[in-house]
C-alpha cells in the first residue's frame, strides 16, 4: 500500500519571490525546518526571474540590478541548504494546512505547522476590442519575455496601460534592439509628479526612471500621457492600434483625436492584483483595498491572517514592491518562529521593531507605484458590450450586464449565471475587472465580493492526482452489524 501520510514540516512557504525566499531564510535562521515551494524552475519570483535553464549571463556587459539581486538571492538559498521544491504547483490546501503539490515526479503532500503564502500578484488587463488576439500580451509578460527569455515581444511594439512597468518594458525593448511604436500611459505627467515625494526615499530608482525617460526621448518614441487603447485590429502584416485620449478616470474624452499606430505586438497592463487563491481557499477574512491592488487577506503588520497558522507576505498581501516584500517576508518569518515557540517574546519584539523600521521607506515608494496602477473606473465603464471579459469562457461584458440586470448580486452568482471565472484560469485573469463591472450594478466591490476559492488551484488531471493509488488502497469499512 502506498504511504499517503503527508510529510511533517514546521513551515511551508508558497512562492520563492523576494518575500517567500527571504521568509524561508529568516525562518531557518530561527531554527525552523522550512520547505520552500515554487511553480517556477528557480527562485526569484517575477521581479527577479531567473534565466531559463542552460542560459548564462554574457561576460563583459553590465547587468541590471534586478538580475544581480536575483542571482545573489538564488546563491544564498543554495548555500542555506533549505529544502526547495521548484517546478511544483500547489493545487490544494486543506483546512489543517495540509498542502498538496504536483511536480514533475507526481503528487506529494506536506503537513506544515504553519503556512506562509507569498504568491505575489497577477496582472490586470482591462479588456478592449482585440485584447485576445495572439501577439497582444501583458506588460508583466513582456518583462518576463525580455529579462528571462531575452526575447522581444515584436519588432514594433505598442506599450500601453499604467504604472512603472510601462517605462521598464519600453526601455527593455529599446535595449534589446526592438522598436517602440508608442507608449500610451493612462496617467498624466502630473500623476507621476505626485509620486516624487515618495521617490525621494529611493534616489536610485528616481535616477533609473529619469534615465529611462531620457532614452525614450532620444529614440524619438511618442509618449502619450492620458491615453489608452480603444481597440487593436489585426490586418495585413500586423496590428492597427487605435489610441484614445482619456480623462483621469480612464474614460475616453469625446471628440478627441484618436491616433493610429502600426505595430506587430502590443504589451498592455493596468496594474497588479494580489494573488489570494490560497487564502480564499482557506476562507481567511479578506478586505478590499483598491490602492493596494484589490482584495487582500486581512492581516496584522506581520502577515498573521484570521486563520491560525496561516501567514501572508509580499505583494500578494497588498502591493508595496519588491524591496518591501523581502522585509515583509522576514517580518512574517519572525512572527511564525515566535508563534511556534522558537523565538522568545523579547527577541521577537526586538526583531519586529527593527524590521518594521526598515520596511517603511521601500513600502512608501511601492505604495506610490501601486497607486499609479490602481484600477481606474472609467476604463471599466468604457469596455464595449461585445468585448470578451472572461477569456477562458468567452463571456462578454454584455452577458455580465445582463446577468446583473436579471439579479446576479455577487461574484459567485455571476459565475453560476454566465460561466465567467469558471474556466481553467479560475478567474485570476478576469476576476478583478468582472467584479468592477458587476459592482457598477450592485453598488460596491465589497458587496459583490470575489470568487470563492476552490481547488484545484491549478488544472491537474485526475490521473496525476490519483498518483500510484490502486483499488487495494481504498479502505473498506467493516460491514455494520445487522
Amino acid at each position, binding site marked *: 500500500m502506498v504511504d499517503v501520510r503527508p510529510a511533517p514540516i514546521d513551515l511551508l512557504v508558497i512562492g520563492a519571490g523576494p518575500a517567500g525566499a527571504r521568509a524561508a531564510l529568516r525562518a531557518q535562521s530561527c531554527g525552523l525546518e522550512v520547505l520552500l515551494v515554487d511553480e517556477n524552475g528557480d527562485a526569484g519570483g517575477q521581479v527577479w526571474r531567473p534565466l531559463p535553464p542552460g542560459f548564462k549571463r554574457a561576460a563583459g556587459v553590465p547587468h541590471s540590478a534586478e538580475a544581480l539581486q536575483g542571482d545573489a538571492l538564488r546563491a544564498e538559498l543554495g548555500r542555506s541548504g533549505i529544502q526547495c521544491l521548484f517546478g511544483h504547483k500547489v493545487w490544494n490546501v486543506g483546512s489543517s494546512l495540509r498542502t498538496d503539490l504536483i511536480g514533475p515526479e507526481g503528487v506529494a503532500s506536506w503537513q506544515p505547522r504553519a503556512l506562509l503564502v507569498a504568491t505575489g500578484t497577477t496582472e490586470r488587463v482591462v479588456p478592449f476590442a482585440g485584447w485576445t488576439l495572439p501577439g497582444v500580451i501583458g506588460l508583466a509578460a513582456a518583462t518576463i519575455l525580455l529579462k528571462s527569455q531575452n526575447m522581444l515581444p515584436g519588432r514594433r511594439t505598442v506599450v500601453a496601460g499604467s504604472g512603472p512597468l510601462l517605462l521598464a518594458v519600453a526601455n527593455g525593448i529599446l535595449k534589446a534592439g526592438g522598436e517602440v511604436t508608442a507608449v500610451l500611459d493612462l496617467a498624466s505627467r502630473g500623476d507621476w509628479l505626485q509620486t516624487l515625494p515618495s521617490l525621494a526615499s529611493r534616489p536610485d530608482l528616481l535616477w533609473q526612471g529619469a534615465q529611462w525617460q531620457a532614452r525614450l526621448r532620444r529614440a524619438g518614441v511618442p509618449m502619450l500621457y492620458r491615453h489608452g487603447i480603444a481597440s487593436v485590429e489585426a490586418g495585413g502584416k500586423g496590428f492597427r492600434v487605435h489610441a484614445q485620449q482619456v480623462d483621469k478616470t480612464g474614460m475616453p474624452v469625446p471628440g478627441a483625436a484618436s491616433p493610429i499606430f502600426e505595430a506587430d505586438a502590443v504589451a498592455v497592463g493596468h496594474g497588479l492584483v494580489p494573488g489570494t487563491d490560497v487564502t480564499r481557499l482557506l476562507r481567511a477574512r479578506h478586505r478590499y483595498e483598491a490602492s493596494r491592488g484589490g482584495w487582500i487577506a486581512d492581516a496584522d503588520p506581520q502577515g498573521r491572517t484570521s486563520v491560525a497558522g496561516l501567514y501572508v507576505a509580499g505583494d500578494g498581501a497588498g502591493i508595496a514592491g519588491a524591496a518591501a516584500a523581502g522585509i515583509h517576508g522576514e517580518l512574517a518569518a519572525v512572527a511564525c518562529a515566535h508563534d511556534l515557540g522558537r523565538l522568545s517574546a523579547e527577541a521577537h519584539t526586538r526583531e519586529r521593531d527593527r524590521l518594521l523600521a526598515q520596511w517603511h521607506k521601500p513600502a512608501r515608494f511601492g505604495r506610490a507605484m501601486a497607486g499609479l496602477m490602481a484600477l481606474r473606473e472609467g476604463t471599466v465603464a468604457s469596455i464595449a458590450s461585445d468585448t470578451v471579459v472572461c*477569456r477562458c469562457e468567452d463571456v462578454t461584458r454584455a452577458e455580465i450586464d445582463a446577468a446583473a440586470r436579471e439579479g446576479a448580486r455577487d461574484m459567485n452568482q455571476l459565475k453560476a449565471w454566465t460561466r465567467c471565472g469558471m474556466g481553467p*484560469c479560475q478567474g485570476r485573469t478576469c476576476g478583478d475587472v468582472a467584479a468592477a463591472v458587476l459592482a457598477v450594478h450592485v453598488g460596491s466591490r465589497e458587496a459583490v465580493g470575489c470568487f470563492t476559492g476552490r481547488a484545484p488551484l491549478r488544472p491537474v488531471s485526475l490521473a496525476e492526482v490519483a498518483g500510484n493509488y490502486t483499488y487495494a488502497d481504498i479502505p473498506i469499512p467493516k460491514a455494520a452489524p445487522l
Partner: protein
Amino acid sequence: MKKSSTSPAPSLRADQAVRRGPAMQILVDGCPVDAFEGESVAAALFAAGRRELRRSPRDHAPRGMFCLMGSCQECLVWIEARKLPACQVPAAAGMEIETLGFREQRLG
C-alpha cells in the same frame, strides 16, 4: 540540421546580455521548429512566428500566450501526454508538442 520553414527574419531573440543554450529543434504538430535549449516552449513558438496556439471554446477565436507566468492558461498545449501551459515548460531537443486543435483532429 534540417532548416525549419517557420523561423521569420529578423529574429526576436536578443543576445546582448545572454548566452543561450544550444540550438536544437522541437517537434510541433509533427513539424520541426528551431529553438534553443531551455527557452520556454511558448517563447520558442512565439519566436518561430507561431503566435496562435489554440481557439477559444465558444467563439473559436485565435488565442496565444498572454501572461507568461503560468496563470492565464491561454498557452495550453500537449507536451508528451500532459496538457501544460507552454510558458512553464523549458524546451528540450526532440520534445514533441501538439496544439490542442491538432490533437483533437488527429484523434478525431
